[in-house]
């Protein structure tokens, strides 16, 4: 039991770290190569239709990552 508990804490730590890292590490003030909002919304709603370059962009551009997190959060609330 304690072992499982420790692993769960590590999982939280990893995803928490990923969120803080991706949300800040790649500032892109010029918004170079950013997809339109509609593309992000479509990706959030239909992951099977995801576009690989856009998906890669999301994890290398903090503004887009943050916007995608907002979209996912609103999707989760629905």
């Amino acid at each position: 039991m304690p072992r499982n508990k420790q692993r769960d804490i590590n999982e939280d730590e990893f995803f928490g770290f990923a969120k803080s890292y991706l949300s800040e590490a790649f500032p892109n003030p010029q918004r170079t190569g950013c997809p339109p909002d509609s593309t992000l919304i479509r990706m959030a709603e239909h992951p099977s239709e995801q576009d690989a370059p856009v998906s890669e962009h999301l994890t290398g551009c903090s503004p887009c990552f943050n916007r995608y997190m907002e979209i996912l959060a609103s999707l989760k609330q629905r």
Partner: protein
Amino acid sequence: MAAQGSPVPPRISPIDKHGRDIHPAVIAAAEEVYARALEHGLKLLGDPAVVVDALEQVAAAVSRLVRTEAPPGAPAIKNLPGYVFRAFVRHVNRLRRRQLALRSSNGDGPPHSTDPSHALEMKILLDECLRQFDVGARDMLLRRIQGFSWNEIGKIHGLSGHAAEVRFGHALRKAQVRLTNGRRSLPCTTRLALTDELKPAMRRNAEK
């Protein structure tokens, strides 16, 4: 008064420090990502000269790839600046990791949450995951980051919650194995990485 031609002088040398040529298209791509790369590299390496040097080395390596004729069926590089930037991030990770290894060669205890090298290892693992993950696994990662349950993730991917968890765990395990290939082991970051503990039939499901 304004100077004619290119307003920004070139910052990337056409030859890296090892004397390797950099392809003009790659120089243009490196110039495009220069500001972002410098900002990111300075956070980890501190010295702008080291950062620019790292960017040039990456550009030289990418140039070799660009010049090499791609084998039939191999995907072409669609977004060269994005490709250069990602390669640069990985190279900076390697350099930083080397720096840390030199500073603390006696770090044989378990990583601690306040230990900066532990945070760096998580960052390196995350970068490796992002590099290796397919679109589906990357989407699972992003949804998990946002707090989706495995059942919610499974539902949107047409899987059971358990299958989604196992599939993601398998992808994560692959990234860890590749990262630790011949090097010191990383901490087992999540319980999802333990697909090896699953029964063989469940492992086969995870590989589908």
